[in-house]
């Protein structure tokens, strides 16, 4: 309606004048483009078994972690004096046995990969821009790899006679 009045008074058509401000029949507001529209940037195929493997890993590692983590918490916090007994000597005593070494190693790897994959999913779902998504995932992968490697190193090279 305002476009009509300006046309009448100034004599300039709606295309030439005032195109930036008022929206009209010839100048509709831009609509937000749907994301799934196929463009030149759309990759041809993103098929592969990685997502399936990740999905399956989450379920299987989850089942194993229930046993590992609950057992760990029970031993560390509840049984035999609870949290007060934990000290260097206690850890050293436990890690003298390969059973507990493997238990902790398995728990470390599974928990880190399970949590890392879960966070990867969260980032994929919630990051809005591709660059944000990329850098958040890089941060996540770095932290995961660092923690897993450090933990593995400690479990394998643990020296109870350290001074």
């Amino acid at each position: 309606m305002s476009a009509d009045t300006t046309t009448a008074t100034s004599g300039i058509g709606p295309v030439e004048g005032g195109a930036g401000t008022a929206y009209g029949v010839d100048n509709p507001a831009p609509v937000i483009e749907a994301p799934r529209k196929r463009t030149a940037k759309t990759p041809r195929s993103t098929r592969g078994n990685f997502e399936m493997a990740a999905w399956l890993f989450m379920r299987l590692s989850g089942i194993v972690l229930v046993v590992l983590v609950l057992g760990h918490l029970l031993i560390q916090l509840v049984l035999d004096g609870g949290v007060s007994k934990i000290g260097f000597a206690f850890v050293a005593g436990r890690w003298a046995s390969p059973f507990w070494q493997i238990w902790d190693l398995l728990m470390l790897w599974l928990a880190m990969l399970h949590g890392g994959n879960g966070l990867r999913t969260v980032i994929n779902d919630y990051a809005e821009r591709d660059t944000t998504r990329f850098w958040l995932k890089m941060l996540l992968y770095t932290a995961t790899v660092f923690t897993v490697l450090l933990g593995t190193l400690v479990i394998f090279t643990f020296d109870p006679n350290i001074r």
Partner: protein
Amino acid sequence: MATPVLDKVEAESAASPYITVTFRVRRFNPEVSAEATWEDFQLEIDPKERVLDGLHKIKWELDGTLTFRRSCAHGICGSDAMRINGRNRLACKTLIKDINPEKPITIEPIKGLTVLKDLVVDMEPFFQAYRDVMPFLVTTGNEPTRERLQSPEDRERFDDTTKCILCAACTSSCPVFWNDGQYFGPAAIVNAHRFIFDSRDEAGEQRLEILNDKDGVWRCRTTFNCTDACPRGIEVTKAIQEVKRALITRRF
């Protein structure tokens, strides 16, 4: 003298089925503004009528510029899926009395798809995902001279997913689809399920491969929004899980 007259008027108003309902409609017109706004409409309507009747009343009697899709108006064509009181429903299957007419009834376009005008969205990305799963019978060999027979048990296997009317209520209720819109969406998976588990079809493997995509079934987070939204009562999330299971049992 006056009392019986008053009584009669009261009795008449009590007998009248009409109540005043406020429709709060999300309006968007790109030819007027880039912003979408809420607009309230007051209308006298029988609460036993449907939301679609209210929209018709607005369009025919109050504001002819209100734009929405509807075709059959009886819950079969799937044109009028919209977000009513924050939930995806078909306007033609929602009775006003069922959604608390005391408060304003909010009506928005379905989410995750481009709004073109008022309640009309661009369905193209939705149908693109639908076409991608090849929703048609694929067979090899000579065509039989009679119909392709199937046992009732085989038919029962995919019966639930044949009910889909492609209204997009499920896909546009899915939070994963809202995020970046790359996910195939529940509707496409439901329609793939309909052929994957059809004993007469021979391209199940191909469809499973398509849905094994990065944005295929594995992006489903099992939030059950799709099952809640489906106006046909399809167990959508169950169908998606069955496709996942088929993918896993096929590989291992």
